């Protein structure tokens, strides 16, 4: 597993993985870690952080620390689910367009291009507005089904490039079935692109979910980072000086996104050797210095 070895050697990947594991573990064990019920009034209105409430309370007297832990479960789950849907559709459409070409390619490419020029957020807003107060599950669905186009395009072009390679030609000449060529020959070579596409889709989904909920299109009774922001904004937390009410969900979303971004950066670097510059450049510079020193001596 060279890939994982390289991943663990990469400083950015390690930081990213550390952040992500803390978040995922705290989301998994939220009911054990949270001192209070996130939907219950357990303190005064907008109490600043104290020993009793580590991260303060909201306008409705709810414990923010308990909320942010529970919110993580929903936000991360929606991000993963939407990212998964996005990636599956992108892989299926991108691979078939790139591999089969012809009519199939024309139809899929056309659909992808149309979706790419229709702006995402307004489309999602129209969909969400007509559905009404959208549950986290539905948010994951509508994000997943509308944001696969970019990934599909990337996978298609990569597949088309791979298709020209000899090992695909020889597999075809040996008479292998196309499903076997796609799954056994093509897919393993696309895994890094699919992986970084998946991470990107998760980042995007979490951001979009927070945005939709922030503007009041989500289900306000669910506890996620987006609805926390929504409640903080509608209760004018910032204007009455309750900065912790806004800050906590902001930090949670940003940190989780940052963790994913760092991981993605590392995956990109490992997958594309040309970008794997940092360590190589450092070695090269050291070598140059050594040569200079030797020539002086």
């Amino acid at each position, binding site marked *: 597993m060279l890939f994982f070895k390289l991943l663990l050697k990469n400083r*950015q990947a390690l930081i990213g993985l550390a952040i992500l594991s803390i978040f995922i573990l705290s989301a998994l064990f939220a009911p054990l870690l949270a001192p209070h019920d996130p939907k219950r009034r357990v303190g005064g209105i907008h109490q600043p952080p104290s020993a009793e409430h580590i991260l303060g309370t909201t306008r409705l007297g709810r414990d923010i620390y308990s909320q942010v832990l529970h919110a993580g479960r929903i936000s991360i789950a929606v991000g993963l689910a939407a990212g998964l849907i996005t990636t599956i559709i992108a892989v299926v459409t991108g691979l078939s367009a790139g591999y089969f070409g012809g009519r199939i390619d024309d139809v899929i490419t056309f659909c992808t*291009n*149309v979706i*790419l*020029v*229709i*702006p*995402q*957020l*307004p*489309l999602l*807003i*129209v*969909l969400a*507005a*007509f*559905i009404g107060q959208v549950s986290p599950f539905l948010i994951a669905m509508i994000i997943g089904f509308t944001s696969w186009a*970019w990934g599909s395009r990337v996978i298609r072009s990569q597949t088309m490039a791979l298709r020209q390679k000899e090992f695909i030609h020889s597999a075809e000449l040996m008479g292998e079935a196309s499903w076997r060529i796609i799954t056994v020959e093509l897919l393993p070579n696309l895994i890094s692109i699919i992986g970084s596409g998946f991470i990107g889709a998760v*980042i995007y989904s*979490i*951001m*979009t979910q*927070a*945005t939709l909920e*922030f*503007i*009041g*299109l989500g289900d306000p009774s669910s506890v996620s980072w987006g609805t926390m*922001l929504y409640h903080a*904004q509608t209760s004018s937390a*910032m*204007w009455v000086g309750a*900065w912790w009410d*806004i800050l906590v969900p*902001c930090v949670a*979303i*940003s940190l989780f*996104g*940052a963790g*994913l*971004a*760092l991981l*993605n*950066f590392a995956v990109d670097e490992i997958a*594309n050797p*040309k*970008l794997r*510059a*940092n360590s*190589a*450049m*450092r070695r090269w*510079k050291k070598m140059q210095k050594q040569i200079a020193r030797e020539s002086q001596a």
Partner: protein
Amino acid sequence: MRFFLRRLSFYLVALIVAASINFFLPRIMPGDPLQIMFGQQMARMTPETVDALRATYGFTDEPLIQQYFQYLGSVARWDLGLSVREFPKPVSEILREGLIWTVVLVGSSTLIAFTLGSFLGLLASWFRGSWYDSIATPLSLVMQSIPSVVICLTALFIFALGLGWFPTGYGYDPQLDPGWNLEFISSVAHHAVLPVLTLVVFQMAAFMIPMRANMINLLGEDYITMGRAKGLSSSRVLFQYGARNALLPSVTTLAMALGFVVGGSFITEVVFNYPGIGYIMFQAILSRDYPLIQGHMLIFTMVMLIANLIADLLYVILDPRVRTGSGDA
């Protein structure tokens, strides 16, 4: 020329698809679309009023296909229906009032982000592996994964509420009358600083990262080595030989990124109460003014299509292969 005709017909189809979503969405949702739109108010209306409204919004008993073409026709005439919240006012008129604010906001921030981001990406590729590259590149990626809501709220809290350097909202000082005088324009500029800056922060990485990656790929090309071997100055190799070619994919990204910018500008306008179409959309969402929300999506689609068209034009200017028709675009 053929290239442009093909692009134009594609954009037309894309617009029709967007309009079709608008048409079918209220009709496939369970329940009476008019009931969804007017809600409680319906109970207080006479049957004649309801029928009149049905006719106004096109929810008639005519066959669906006929309704559909009528709808497409009205979109073509730029008749987007009437707003529910400000009832007899046409949607297109409400949107026109906000459009200029959004175009200026998105346009100026995209221009700044494109120039600054491309330049920083260029530097990162040239000084690859240096401390600048190893800090700036991951940092910009991390910035990219922070939602614009967070960026805007933080900027509002620190620079407007905390330090008081900038106003907390709106497009200009409400005590002034709009006009072409210095006082008004400087007020507009002062109010625009934070929204523009947050949008620049939001987009910059989208230009910096591809620029860096493209340049790194290009710097390995033979003609770069050749340029250096000829003894050209670094800046000349960097800008004339490298940047010009590395910018090409960025131009396509520019149009694509606009979709994300539109989303970002929407949030910026909401947080800063900026009077553009994003803010109008937000008001429409709060009062469930569906025709306005739908008109909004159409106008954003139009903006996207125009931006794509401009990107096509730029591409022809920058890439001679497209011009002569030998490249497959």
